[in-house]
């Protein structure tokens, strides 16, 4: 399934900017021989600068593998990955490290408890990507302050340890840390799943601002609400395959694929009950057929 994001044209005639991330026919598998297991099958997805693409799907659908492939943490067995116009498919460890060091791509983990080193102060954690780049501590310090401000946290937190912060605060620190190298692409794996609604909204609002500022975001989540509220486009992964991609409104309002219908139908909303068990069974049968 190929998708044409707004602003780009597969024919290549437009002067549209390079996609921040372009994945074409991506296959990833784990294990060998009989235990070989396909995590992703022929996935193609393109994310334009400033665009927020939500990737939804359930446990085991390959969401995280997609993220890890885009970061070079998993190798593709077929297909190609292009980051900011740079074909990284065949990159070895060294070239990946050099690319990552430029801070073009960043990643935010699901678990804010464990994604910050418990022994480093918030400031040290924040500026780590800069220090890795070779920036001096002195130049990095003011940046730490301004990015903390950008995620609406007080400077007082700089000297604290992660253990003294709430889950929501920690996740915002993790977001600030990912932003400090001014990346053009940020991949977020379930960034709000561990947060309560107030913190969730705060983080999602920060993400919206980022999108507006021209940063491309890939928002991976099993929570349809968060994705619907933030993403411009939604890609639906089912058993390693991309079954549907489209504008967020269309995917939620008029899901075409049976799996998307099942997902959207399963979620209760304030005004509508989820699809009945019979309806869901029918959709499942359709999927297994």
């Amino acid at each position, binding site marked *: 399934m190929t998708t044409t994001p707004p602003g780009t044209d597969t024919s290549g005639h437009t002067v549209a900017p390079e996609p921040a991330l372009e994945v074409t026919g991506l296959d990833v598998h784990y294990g060998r021989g009989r235990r070989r297991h396909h995590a992703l099958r022929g996935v193609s997805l393109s994310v334009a600068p400033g665009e927020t693409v939500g990737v939804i799907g359930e446990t085991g659908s390959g969401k995280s593998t997609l993220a890890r492939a885009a970061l070079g943490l998993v190798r593709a067995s077929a297909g190609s990955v292009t980051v900011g116009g740079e074909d990284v498919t065949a990159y070895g460890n060294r070239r990946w490290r050099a690319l990552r060091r430029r801070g073009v791509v960043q990643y935010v983990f699901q678990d804010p408890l464990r994604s910050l080193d418990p022994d480093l102060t918030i400031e040290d954690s924040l500026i780590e990507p800069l220090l890795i780049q070779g920036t001096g501590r002195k130049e990095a310090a003011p940046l730490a302050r301004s990015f903390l401000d950008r995620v609406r946290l007080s400077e007082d937190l700089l000297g604290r340890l992660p253990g003294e912060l*709430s889950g929501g605060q920690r996740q915002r620190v993790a977001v600030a840390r990912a932003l400090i190298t001014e990346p053009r692409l940020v991949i977020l794996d379930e960034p709000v799943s561990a947060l309560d*609604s*107030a913190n969730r909204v705060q983080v999602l609002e920060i993400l919206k601002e980022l999108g507006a500022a021209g940063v491309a975001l890939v928002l991976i989540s*099993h929570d349809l609400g968060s994705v*619907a509220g933030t993403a411009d486009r939604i890609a639906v992964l089912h058993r390693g395959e991309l079954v549907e991609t489209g504008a967020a409104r269309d995917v939620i*309002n008029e899901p075409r694929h049976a799996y998307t219908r099942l997902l959207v139908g399963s*979620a*209760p909303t*304030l005004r509508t009950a989820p699809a009945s*068990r019979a309806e869901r069974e029918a959709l499942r049968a359709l999927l297994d057929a």
Partner: protein
Amino acid sequence: MTLLSQHTAPEQTRTVATAGPSAPPVLAVRDVRISDRVTEREIVRGVSFELTPGKAVGIVGESGSGKTLTCRAALGILPPHFEVTGGSVEIDGTDIATLTPPQWAALRGSTISAVFQDPASYLNPSIRVGAQIAEVVRVKKGLKRREARHRAVELLRAVRLSDPELVYGQYTYELSGGMLQRVLIAAAIAADPRALIADEATTALDVTVQAEILDLLAELRERSGLALVVVSHDLAVVAHLCDEVLVMRQGEVVEHGPTRAVLYDPQHEYTRLLIAEHDQYGLEKFLTPKEAS
């Protein structure tokens, strides 16, 4: 669902959901206040609700608003330095302050039961998960080993674990968070409790699995009059499942009433904020116009 029709011991005739509002409450929380003994701060300032058989009460609010503490107080399992400093909790007409440990043991599981977040910490890592459920059934329902095992597998199937026989023989570390959560739900309903407290019980689950669990809970309510306390940050789950909603903020109940009234015609500013956030960062963002048309 076979689970509910079978293995309901005949001597257990229950007041079913059809029992009117006059049925005595399974759980009555009356003006409960909870304080932190160390800081001497009152964390929960007067929460009241009544849970008659078949009824479902939802509690929503930000983290730290006292939702979880209230639930824990109702189960008599407050964390170390917290204590109930006012009001009362009655389970089945008995004030829990008068309960002895053996009485508590008899109540928990069979009369009142609970599912919390963080499932791994409620299961023993060195015992197969199925055996832990079977144990509940054996102790609480007096079933023989083999029947207990059979029933445990059925429960695992009821919470939509795809290979219940396999899961029965697995240890906690072999299961994902979502699977553990479902195991915990199975254990919580294993002894056919009359009231179940579900504190963010479906938050970590995939949406399709959540739908199955919500259905299961609704079915238990209808068939055997299970009463529910649902704590969730997802207003939609509460709206879908509950008759009554409490909105809590900083230890106080700012709004309390029938679900429809509270969620569709919120009076308190904070409730309005919660709903606005949900509308903006939820499926409603897109669904609302369509529903209206």
